[in-house]
């Protein structure tokens, strides 16, 4: 949206309940984030949101506005405010906001966007609040504002007269004074940071380690009933008939009914059972007799056969075409041709999908676990038929997201079911089996038919990828895409990406580092193949590619930042400098996604039975000038590495007759303690760029780094995932 309306950023100060000082903010930056999340311009937020309350006892209550899925945002956003407010972290209390786009603008967890989107506005807010308190102190002492300063710990000082006042003592005065202009406030020099750049444990840790109710699953409301929801195993199927009358007669059952599909509002058709306890409702499912109609008929076998057929036909579309790939392949000194493939995955966060809704007295209250709660709010508005003002939506902590909770299908179900059981709260809880059968799957399965060539000097001169992806009506399914700037695009003079669609009715969507989470495997494994074909060291080969003058459309990877992390990880891992025992190899991979540059090295030992032990993983990362929370930043990288290794070795969802064939963790073996690497080293390459997010970009490179390490250890090149299909297992 472009307009000649001035950008708006302003503060509002007022007296909070209990007599504290409440500082609320409106900023267009949040409105912009909201617009991105919805894919269009929103109505502008109407009222400033209350982010900071300074209490009379000198404690500070800071509102965390974004949903917490384990990415650490509930701790990080308040850290940014507290830093510039110049208070001690021990005096900060954090509260989770409700869902309110008018107050908070963008509230979402996805795309590693929270850090780049909030780093400056949250700091400005804290700095403005500090300026307000300094002005109040100056007025109290009748001295110039320029003569006072804050001393940390929530104290304003006037050096000349050696006087100081605690923030708590200033709240009454500050509430009567005009708010400073947000854009003009003075921010701290990063070298003076006391909170940013330190280890700040999650604010919810005390509740987590003592088992306090915290998650969506932990809801307990007076009179609450429990719901389960049965859907067609084949995607998109709907109910033709169901024995709801029989179910209703069973003991402990409150109600049983058919819910009609409403695809515009993420609602699949199905049969709801509401009971006094979840166990009763879940058991009653065994007595359901449902006739389904319609639904997908996709199968993994048909996908694979069709992909090969598509690879032999002319591609359906051209994504990028630089130079003359055919000619370059003909004249290349060496060429490599390879087919890469990867399966569908399910997100499987530890906490299965759930949502609690209550209709009463013309109002709807929802306790949601959503990465896109504002979209969930819109769905609740449309399905309930109520005005937005009659709906309250709370945000519960989530037991993992990974992109699964970007879709709000279970929230739609909860609202639709609760509407039928008016007057009492209804807690919809999916089983693990529901979760695995009805995901918005990702990775989507995909196939890459690659050719590459190097010249006599070993320089990469040609690269072609015929990408076959799932989709329908000539469009890829959600997050099953390959863009025109994917590395090594622009660094190869003759380069093309072409695409064909494997018809699919399977719902797909983002998973941690969508697209990247598997494109890195293909691109960085094939890059390794070409390095070996050229007879060059894999690190040196990558650096040489990055030194190639750009061809064609620009965008994507910044060569200098990329080289920086490749060199750093090589240095830290002792690349090429250590003698490894037989059966042990090191693999490197680089990937750029979500604004972050990551190079990773895996050292792995493979025995004669193809049992793999990852000895150590090195991560080198450039996510800008500042690591905000040094504890969580490393935790996110370690978790991403473990996640990726687990996916690479063992994980696969297969389809038959339009239904997924894996139903629980016995057939979808997530990585465990004894399989995970004991040592993961993370090194930061601080650069002169704004700080960016860490929820996703550390994951993609570890998969090809592992595969390249297996090649280095054994000479076996793995071109399809998971590794277990090729006889590999964890040692």
């Amino acid at each position, binding site marked *: 949206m472009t307009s000649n309306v001035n950008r708006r950023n302003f503060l509002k100060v007022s007296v909070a309940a209990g007599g504290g000082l409440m500082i609320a903010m409106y900023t267009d930056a949040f409105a912009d984030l909201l617009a991105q999340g919805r894919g269009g311009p929103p109505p502008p937020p109407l009222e400033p949101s209350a982010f900071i309350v300074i209490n009379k006892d000198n404690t500070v209550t800071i509102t965390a506005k974004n949903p917490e*899925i*384990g*990415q*650490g945002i509930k701790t990080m956003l308040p850290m940014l405010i507290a830093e510039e407010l110049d208070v001690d972290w021990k005096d900060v209390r954090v509260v989770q906001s409700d869902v309110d786009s008018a107050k908070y603008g963008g509230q979402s967890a996805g795309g590693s966007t929270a850090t780049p989107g909030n780093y400056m506005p949250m700091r400005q807010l804290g700095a403005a609040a500090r300026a307000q308190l300094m002005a109040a102190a100056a007025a109290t002492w009748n001295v110039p504002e320029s003569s006072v300063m804050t001393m940390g710990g929530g104290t304003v000082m006037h050096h000349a007269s050696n006087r100081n006042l605690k923030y708590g003592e200033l709240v009454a005065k500050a509430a009567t004074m005009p708010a400073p202009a947000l854009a003009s406030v003075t921010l701290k020099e990063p070298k003076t940071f006391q909170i940013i750049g330190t*280890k700040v*444990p*999650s604010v*919810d*840790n*005390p509740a*987590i*380690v*003592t*088992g*306090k*109710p*915290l*998650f969506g*699953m*932990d809801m*307990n409301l007076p009179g609450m009933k*429990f719901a389960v929801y049965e859907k067609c195993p084949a995607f998109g199927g709907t109910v033709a008939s169901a024995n709801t009358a029989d179910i209703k007669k069973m003991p402990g059952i409150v109600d049983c009914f058919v819910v009609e599909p409403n695809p515009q509002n993420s609602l699949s058709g199905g049969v709801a059972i509401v009971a006094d*306890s*979840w*166990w009763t409702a879940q058991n009653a499912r065994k007595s359901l007799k449902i006739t389904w109609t319609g639904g997908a008929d996709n199968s993994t076998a048909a996908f694979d056969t069709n992909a090969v057929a598509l690879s032999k036909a002319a591609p359906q579309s051209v994504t990028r075409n630089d130079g003359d790939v055919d000619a370059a392949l003909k004249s290349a000194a060496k060429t490599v041709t390879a087919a890469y493939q990867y399966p569908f995955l399910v997100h*499987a*966060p*530890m*906490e*299965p999908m759930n949502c609690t809704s209550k209709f009463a007295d013309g109002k709807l209250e929802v306790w949601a676990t959503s990465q896109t709660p504002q979209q969930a709010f819109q769905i609740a508005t449309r399905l309930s038929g109520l005005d937005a003002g009659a709906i309250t939506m709370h945000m519960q*902590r*989530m*037991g*993992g*997201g*990974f992109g699964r909770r970007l879709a709000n299908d279970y929230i739609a179900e909860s609202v639709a079911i609760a509407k039928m059981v008016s007057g009492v709260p209804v807690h919809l809880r999916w*089983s*693990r089996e529901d979760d695995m059968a009805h995901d918005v799957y990702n990775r989507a399965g995909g196939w890459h038919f690659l050719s590459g060539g190097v010249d006599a000097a070993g320089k990469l001169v040609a690269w072609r990828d015929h990408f076959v992806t799932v989709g329908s009506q000539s469009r890829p399914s959600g997050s099953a895409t390959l863009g025109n700037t994917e590395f090594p695009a622009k660094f190869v003079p003759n380069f093309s990406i072409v695409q064909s669609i494997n018809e699919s009715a399977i719902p797909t969507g983002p998973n941690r580092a969508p697209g990247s989470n598997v494109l890195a495997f293909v691109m960085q494994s094939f890059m390794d193949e070409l390095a070996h074909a050229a007879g060059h060291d894999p690190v040196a080969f990558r650096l040489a590619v990055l030194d190639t003058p750009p061809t064609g459309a620009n965008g994507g990877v910044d060569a200098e930042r990329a080289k920086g992390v490749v060199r750093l990880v090589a240095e830290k891992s002792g690349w090429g400098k250590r003698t490894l025992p037989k059966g042990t190899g090191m693999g490197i991979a680089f990937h750029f996604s979500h604004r972050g540059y990551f190079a990773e090295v895996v050292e792995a030992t493979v025995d004669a039975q193809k049992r793999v032990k990852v000895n150590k993983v090195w991560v080198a990362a450039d996510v800008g000038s500042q690591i905000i929370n040094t*504890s*969580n930043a490393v*935790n*996110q990288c*370690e*978790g*991403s*590495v*473990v*996640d990726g290794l*687990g996916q690479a070795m063992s994980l696969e969802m297969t389809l038959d007759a339009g239904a997924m064939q894996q139903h*629980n*963790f*016995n057939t979808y073996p*997530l990585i*465990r*303690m*004894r399989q*995970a690497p*004991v*040592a*993961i080293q993370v090194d930061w390459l601080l650069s002169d760029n704004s700080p960016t997010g860490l929820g996703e970009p550390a994951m993609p490179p570890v998969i090809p780094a592992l595969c390249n390490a297996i090649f280095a250890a054994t000479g076996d090149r793995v071109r399809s995932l998971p590794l277990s299909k090729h006889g590999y297992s964890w040692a």
Partner: protein
Amino acid sequence: MAYTLNVNGKTQTVDVPGDMPLLWVLRDSLHLYGTKYGCGIGQCGACTVHIRGRAARACQVTVQNAANAPIVTIEGLSADGTHPVQKAWMDLDVPQCGYCQAGQIMSAAALLATTPKPTDADIDGAMSGNICRCGTYTRIREGIHRAAGQKAEAL
């Protein structure tokens, strides 16, 4: 049917079907929400509690089999969150999403009760029944060593 349960030192009576898993009795009848549901088939360990001092998966134990046995849940591991494992978890900032961590802590506490100075191999053996989808295994391992008063082996 009525069953008498001894949970965290308190004796309570619940009126539920005998085949109801202890997990759902703890959560939905006794409102102890620290014990989590992750899979329902004993694969993930999110519902780990102590029964007669040993780690057990509450989704795999029926209420009739748990009756009268001393049961400890995460809420009863310590009065105020000061069990060495809980303290180590907070010191090291182990959790990400936190959903599995009650189960991880209960497995770790059971290990340390029998093996006060565990090796990495001991940890692998005792903790591989607990899945952490966020992948915090490095810190869980370090946390157990910390709680045991040890330096981590490989770090």
